[in-house]
């Protein structure tokens, strides 16, 4: 590919503007209204889930929660763009993406409530465990994608990372392996402009993060990450291309982390409320809602139905999360190896003995 082909455009790709009006794009058509409605519904549900998780954290039901608030368009639209057989590689931030993938919210929150590290079956949902060590998941995604390619399977992989994580060596190695192997993987960089307290300007001097793709001979796209329609269209196209043998792509979604890094963080120490306010006006859910209302695809009754449905799911989640999970101490020694070793067996006995003494 010539460098020109690789370079992202000068402005982020946008299909719906802040006021909910359609924008024409030379390369991408807007998704059907049916798709937009689905994205809307999922974003509303995702946001309500996110609020619920935040509330549960305040009540001490979760050990920690990194909110997706403000990033719903990226997470929901990217996941919705995936095919059934595609694999998803999330980070700790992608609770909403995982819920959108159809995973039981309680299973999504298992890790974050302090229960076992991964609450869901990765194979059942084709979703890797939430990944905390930054950027390490990008390499796994490339490996899985390349394995599928070698097998001749029609599978693409979508992996999320943050703006900060692009600085890690692993991201670089993943981009390069993907390009060299023509692995069917799409890297979605949710550029929410902060890595905990570090703003993008201290993270990178690149014109855009999408420009990083050039150095790997990979396509880079710079997308308005608060425009669900644009995220959907670009990611979908990239996944289709990848599955068809077109190789990997990097999609930077420009968005904003509305909440603090996690509930334990105090964003007031490092950023201005004014900046947050600016982005509040660019809300991704409201944007799509405006379009759908204006175009008559959504009326007040439907809007309320969507909200009620989300409310119901949240209530169900709240109820289920109120019960403390039952953990069995003896399980500590399970799944360290496929077959427990004699050595671990002795340690398990020691613990069992202690517990029986206590009882």
């Amino acid at each position: 590919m010539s460098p020109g082909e690789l370079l992202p455009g000068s402005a982020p790709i946008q299909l719906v503007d802040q006021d909910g009006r359609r924008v024409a794009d030379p390369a991408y058509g807007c998704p059907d209204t049916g798709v937009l409605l689905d994205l809307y519904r999922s974003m509303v549900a995702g946001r309500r889930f996110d609020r619920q998780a935040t509330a549960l954290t305040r009540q001490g039901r979760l050990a920690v929660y990194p909110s997706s608030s403000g990033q719903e368009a990226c997470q929901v639209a990217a996941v919705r763009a995936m095919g059934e057989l595609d694999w998803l590689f999330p980070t700790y931030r992608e609770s909403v993406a995982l819920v959108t993938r159809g995973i039981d919210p309680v299973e999504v929150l298992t890790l974050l409530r302090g229960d076992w590290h991964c609450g869901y079956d990765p194979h059942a949902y084709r979703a890797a465990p939430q990944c905390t060590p930054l950027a390490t998941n990008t390499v796994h995604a490339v490996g899985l994608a390349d394995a599928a390619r070698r097998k001749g399977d029609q599978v693409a992989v979508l992996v999320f990372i943050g703006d900060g994580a692009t600085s890690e060596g692993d991201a670089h190695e993943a981009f390069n392996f993907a390009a060299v192997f023509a692995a069917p993987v799409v890297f979605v960089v949710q550029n929410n402009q902060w890595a905990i307290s570090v703003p993008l300007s201290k993270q990178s001097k690149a014109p855009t993060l999408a420009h990083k793709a050039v150095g790997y001979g990979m396509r880079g796209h710079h997308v308005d990450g608060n425009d669900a329609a644009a995220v959907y269209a670009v990611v979908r196209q990239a996944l289709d291309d990848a599955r068809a043998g077109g190789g990997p792509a990097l999609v930077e979604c420009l968005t904003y982390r509305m909440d603090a890094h996690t509930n334990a963080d105090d964003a007031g120490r490092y950023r201005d409320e004014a900046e947050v306010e600016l982005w509040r006006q660019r809300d991704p859910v409201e944007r799509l809602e405006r379009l759908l209302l204006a175009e008559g695809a959504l009326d007040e009754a439907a809007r309320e139905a969507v909200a009620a449905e989300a409310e119901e799911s949240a209530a169900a989640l709240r109820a289920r999360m109120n019960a403390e999970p039952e953990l069995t101490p003896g399980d500590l020694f399970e799944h360290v190896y496929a077959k427990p070793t004699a050595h671990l067996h002795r340690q398990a006995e020691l613990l069992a003995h202690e517990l029986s003494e206590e009882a």
Partner: protein
Amino acid sequence: MAATTSVTKKATTPATKATTKAATKAAETKAEASVTPAVRTSVTMAQALNAALRDALRDDPSVLVFGEDVGKLGGVFRITDGLAAEFGDDRCFDTPLAEAGIVGTAIGMAMYGMRPVVEMQFDAFAYPAFEQVTSHLAKLRNRTRGRLGLPVVIRVPYGGGIGGVEHHSDSSEAYYTHTPGLKVVTPGTPADAYSLLRDAIADPDPVIFMEPKRRYWTKGDLDLPVRTEPMDRAVVRRPGTDVTLIAYGAMVATALETADAAREEGWDVEVVDLRSLVPFDDETVTASVRRTGRAVVVHEASTFGGYGAEVAARVTEQCFHFLEAPVLRVGGFDIPYPPPKLEEHHLPSVDRILDAVARLQWEEAGA
């Protein structure tokens, strides 16, 4: 040593527990003295570390503090709180998010005469820097026959007990203690936190400075600035005659609790706080074990191949004929660090240590 230690309830939300008191104090008095002046007060380990960094920055213009979120935020544990504001972005600053990059640039800076003190945000997030630590930081003095020493300090908040999710509670000291060329130090008290960190920064060699994060909010009454024993010495924290508990970092407090509990069982327990894992203070440890004839090593890290194995092996070599029973180890189980809701079962507890003491063949020997 002007410190007494009290153990506070374990904190589950680190970031909110940190305070800026020490920072403010120090800033107020900046103009008057070249070190934070003596104030006997209740000081947390986090505050002591903060004060040590502040005083080092003030005393030596070649000291630099950097890492992820150490600037405006003051670190996720607030250990660097207020430093960027006081010393400016040129002395205390955020880096891009890349640990090999952090350690690698620290190496380059030290080659140019700086004394970088870098923070790894959590234990497991130091692993990306492993090659830089092992192949360069540890070896450069040796490779250049002493021409390039690297006075770099890597601060690693380590260990569990804070309710952290996976990758936030590793005890990684054994990886470093097996790597010749590194010094490895870990404080068990607020006073040592200050003194050892000052020593580490002043040391001509690279020091992996392991901070027992669950003790960040442990308080001690002490005068700042405080200086305790030299960095390479172990300390008898509590004398006893029957058995030696050898501990370090977070387990020092647990060992002291155990000693209290053991008294009820009729055992007079001596507690040695190693402080310096490398170099190892054979003299202090061996003297203690020869006196008591029994020893248990305690750490949070997985037992198999852990640092306790070295302690047990070398103590046995040096005290064989004084031992009434084999040196036992109480460490974490040989499993990946478990989720918060199960960590209490994984970590060495007073009861588990007492059980080990009880297994030291008292009947036979007592006879």
